[in-house]
């Protein structure tokens, strides 16, 4: 089947390694999100998969077949571009059927397939329209339908939803995921939006500086970050320097006993403690701090606490809002099982 194998894939632009020695095995039918800050190399990696860039080193295998040297037009992949890249001089149906007409398929077949694909993305009867007559969400669907026209071996999407407003984007995330599950096509999506990745993906690949930082299911990456970068990038994390000892850690001299459910990935000595805001609790005693700001977001309440030169965020449900005022001295504790000790 079309499982995807990246073997030491690298791409250099001059002295800069945009993609640095990436090796991955992706099972057939997965929905993969490439996640990372801008400039981390995720778009370059996607373009390497598509054949739009030639790798400086490494190989790319699709279902055991080496496609490293295969040019983009011969790979039989589908791709949705960030700008969507819909052809303004063609109608909606002509856009969707472009991959078929370019392969010399008969007109009737192109028409029928275009109708079928437009129905798949809920755009029945829109085939005769021009691209500029469509709304942003409709254009998005046309681009997706076009990418799927030839039943691609691999479906690639580069920040496909970034141009949509927040509501529509969330809606399209669900729709895209449902569509992919129905068709079972192996899909790789580039995004810088971690919520988007957590909503859609089977596998999240977190990248930074051209390197893969962590690969895994979304909840695993969220709960169990492999290093401080992933902890900081996925969701909001409080990162505090600490000393790891036997069954306990010390944060600025304050000892905290570890629970068996806590995850320890560092060796004894200097380390980094990562705690999600929902695992931070304000108590009578504990790590000392001073409330600097309370932000009521309606669905939740954020309390910012200064601890030395670090700011720690605690997150509460609206009903559980603590009785604190700005400037108040408080103590902090971290919920057992919510503490991750990472290499410094």
């Amino acid at each position, binding site marked *: 089947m079309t499982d995807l194998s990246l073997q030491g894939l690298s791409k250099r632009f001059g002295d800069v390694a945009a993609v640095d020695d990436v090796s991955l095995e992706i099972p057939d039918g997965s929905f993969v999100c490439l996640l990372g800050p801008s400039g981390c190399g995720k778009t370059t990696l996607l373009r390497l998969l598509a*054949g*739009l*860039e030639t790798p400086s080193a490494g190989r790319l295998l699709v279902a055991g077949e080496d496609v490293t040297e295969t*040019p*983009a037009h011969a790979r039989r992949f589908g791709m949705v571009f960030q700008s969507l890249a819909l052809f303004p001089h063609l109608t909606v149906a002509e856009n969707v059927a472009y991959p078929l007409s370019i392969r010399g398929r008969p007109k009737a077949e192109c028409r029928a397939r275009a109708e079928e694909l437009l129905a798949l993305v809920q755009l029945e009867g829109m085939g005769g329209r021009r691209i500029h007559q469509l709304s942003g969400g409709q254009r998005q669907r046309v681009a997706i339908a076009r990418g799927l026209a030839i039943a691609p071996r691999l479906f690639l999407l580069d920040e496909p939803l970034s141009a949509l407003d927040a509501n529509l984007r969330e809606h399209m995330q669900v729709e895209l995921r449902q569509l992919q599950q129905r068709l079972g096509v192996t899909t790789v999506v580039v995004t810088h939006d971690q919520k988007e990745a957590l909503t859609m993906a089977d596998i999240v690949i977190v990248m930074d500086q051209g390197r893969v930082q962590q690969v895994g299911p979304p909840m695993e990456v969220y709960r169990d970050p492999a290093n401080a970068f992933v902890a900081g990038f996925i969701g909001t994390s409080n990162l505090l320097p600490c000393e790891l000892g036997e069954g306990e850690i010390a944060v600025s001299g304050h000892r905290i006993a570890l629970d068996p459910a806590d995850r320890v990935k560092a060796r004894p000595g200097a380390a980094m403690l990562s705690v999600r805001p929902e695992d931070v609790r304000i108590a009578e005693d504990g790590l000392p701090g001073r409330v600097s700001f309370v932000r009521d977001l309606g669905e939740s309440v954020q309390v910012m606490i200064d601890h030395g030169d670090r700011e720690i965020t605690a997150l509460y449900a609206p009903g559980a809002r603590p009785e604190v005022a700005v400037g108040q001295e408080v103590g902090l504790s971290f919920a057992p099982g919510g503490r991750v000790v990472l290499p410094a």
Partner: protein
Amino acid sequence: MSAPSEKPTPGWLAALPAAWLAVFFLVPFAIMLGVSVAHRVPGGFYEPGFELASYARFLTPFFGKILLTSVALSAGAAAICVALAFPFTVILARMGRRAQTLVLVALLAVLSLSEVIIGFSLSTLLSKTAGIGNFFAWLGLIAESRAYTPSFFALMTGLCYLALPYAVLVLYPPVSRLDPELGEAARIMGASPMRAFWTVTVPMLRAPLMGAGILVFVFTLGVYLLPQVLGQPAHWTLSVHITDQAIFQSNLPFAAAMAVLLLIVSLALVGLTLLLGRDRAGAA
């Protein structure tokens, strides 16, 4: 950014325009350079050789006067055109798109007109029987209609008519890219519209203004017909003499030498314009 396989055209296709322009544009210049140092055969064409006799003729007072005439006419036209075109362009760039399009159509139409047609039209406008002479006589400003051509005034009018649309179109991109908020900011800080124009708009566009002046200068240096139609023989420019030598005096080497000189002057000035443009890009 994109890989070699993504180029829309194969690399060898560039050989076509490259070879075409090399043969039909660069080779003629090379031949012209060769002719300029060839030996003139009086009454005939020329025979190959290397002598600087044609260039030596530059050193005569006769030639110096021609060069001076050309430069003075072009410099005058450049100054007048830029002075008229700059406020025009500033106003134009603030108009709505429809109005801008209409004015641009008019400018392009005038710009595309042959020197011949401009010369003919202006000589008609300035003539005794069909021109402003009639109009002035009718107004009672003058007793009887008269012709205003050929004259220095007619020639300068022609040069400005020819070059004004060009000056506007050269100034148009930088002026239209100028952020209107800069002027508005100056207004809010208390500058009068005129003061904002002189203290913000003009200094910011100093380089494009110089560039436009130089380009108009080069453009009018090439004028060939207007001096003959609207001017007197004393106003004949280098271009007129180049053609005269080439066609009527059959002195190709001297014509070529004058053309080479004109080429050097033009290239130097165009180079200066590019340099000014680079300074501006560097400062921005």
